[in-house]
């Protein structure tokens, strides 16, 4: 159900950019070391059980214990640690030039996504989805609104904790266009297993157009009107959700200004179409048990559909 965990080869072994590549290299080296050490241990076991007496004596000697038990792991593990840290240091490097900045905040159980300008002002507010230009590094400023979450899009970078009261940095980059799944990788209670994410990499011009369009919409009034908009405001949705250009300004749930153009609903877990919108609003608790939006099963099918039709227009 959560895309980051789908597919073959597993995303960790299918990097789509330089940061993920260093993680993949590290993963292969660790796997190789693990295999080598396992082979050595199995060989030693064979010697101990079946081997010739001379070898058995050597294996039990003090020298072997010092070399195989202390020197070898000491040197190898220290070298691996130093090398691994150096290899992945670039993942958390600070902003150095004019990299794009996006603030991603972990919330129980979804991700707030805010595209920032150079001064740190919010250009576009969105949720559960990150759009990025191909071939450019993007610096994510990771935060948490409640408990510790962990941000992980395995195709694009390593895993990084989102810690309350702190900002951690994580660089991501995609070198090919496409859609890459992510997950929260730190147990955060309740429906943690249904806390997903999608990253979508566009060509650079495409991306600039996308961002400019969204920024324009944030400053304009909301499209559509009629029964759906009225029903949305009357049902109390506005207390938890923001739709730019309307009185709806709630912050407890995902920003819905662009919900109609999002690829998923419920934090990366459902496809987004009129049916799933109605199903989510009507009874999100049966889909994502324990999530912080109440089920609106007191609304009629018609009222639900009106709301869904209006939300579909929020692109």
């Amino acid at each position, binding site marked *: 159900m959560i895309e980051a965990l789908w597919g073959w080869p597993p995303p960790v072994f299918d990097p789509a950019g330089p940061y993920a590549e260093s993680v993949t290299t590290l993963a292969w080296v660790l796997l190789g070391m693990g295999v080598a050490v396992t082979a050595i241990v199995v060989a030693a076991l064979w010697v101990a059980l079946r081997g010739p007496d001379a070898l058995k004596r050597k294996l039990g000697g003090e020298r072997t214990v010092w070399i195989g038990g202390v020197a070898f792991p000491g040197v190898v593990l220290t070298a691996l640690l130093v090398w691994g840290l150096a290899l992945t240091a670039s993942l958390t490097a600070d902003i150095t030039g004019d990299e794009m900045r996006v603030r991603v905040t972990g919330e129980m159980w979804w991700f707030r996504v805010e595209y920032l300008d150079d001064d740190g002002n919010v250009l576009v507010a969105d949720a559960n989805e990150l759009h990025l230009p191909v071939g450019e590094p993007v610096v994510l400023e990771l935060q948490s609104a409640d408990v510790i979450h962990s941000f992980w899009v395995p195709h694009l970078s390593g895993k990084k904790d989102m810690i309350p009261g702190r900002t951690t940095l994580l660089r991501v980059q995609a070198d090919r266009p496409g859609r890459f799944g992510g997950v929260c990788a730190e147990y955060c209670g309740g429906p943690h297993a249904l806390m997903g994410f999608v990253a979508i990499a566009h060509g650079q011009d495409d991306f600039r157009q996308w961002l400019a369009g969204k920024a324009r919409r944030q400053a304009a009034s909301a499209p559509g009107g009629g029964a759906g908009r009225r029903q949305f405001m009357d049902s109390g949705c506005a207390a938890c959700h923001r739709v730019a250009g309307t009185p709806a300004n709630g912050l407890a749930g995902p920003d819905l200004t662009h919900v109609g153009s999002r690829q998923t609903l419920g934090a990366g877990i459902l496809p987004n*179409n*009129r*049916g799933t919108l109605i199903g*989510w609003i*009507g009874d999100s608790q*049966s*889909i994502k048990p324990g999530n912080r939006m109440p089920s609106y*099963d007191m609304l009629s*099918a018609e009222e*639900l559909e009106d709301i869904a039709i209006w939300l579909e227009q929020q692109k």
Partner: protein
Amino acid sequence: MKAVGQIFGHAAALGCALGLAACKQPPASRYTFDAGLRDMGRHVIERAGCAACHEIPGIDWPEGRTGPSLAGFDGVGPIAGYLPNTPANLARFVRNAPAAKPGSTMPAMPISSEEAHAVAAYLYGIDDD
């Protein structure tokens, strides 16, 4: 109600006697489709998100409740209590319910008519009793 049920029962028995295709023929499921088509149906159901509103046997998650459970659907009577239960009608219904059954509260779903036939094959293949 009882009378209606009886009439329906008689009609069904008569239909069966005449060898119409649409009859329940226990214990085997009433239509058989090849496994490939049913598999495709399952994928379509997952991609379209039908389970956001329905509990569907064979789909572990989600189990939405905005629509009726489809457990035991292989043994159901008329589709949505209205349409004669045939593969063509079922495919029409799952693709565009309000067009197939005026006033239906199930919304039209973004699937092609070919995909709808695969979905129908999957639903007829439900065998959970």
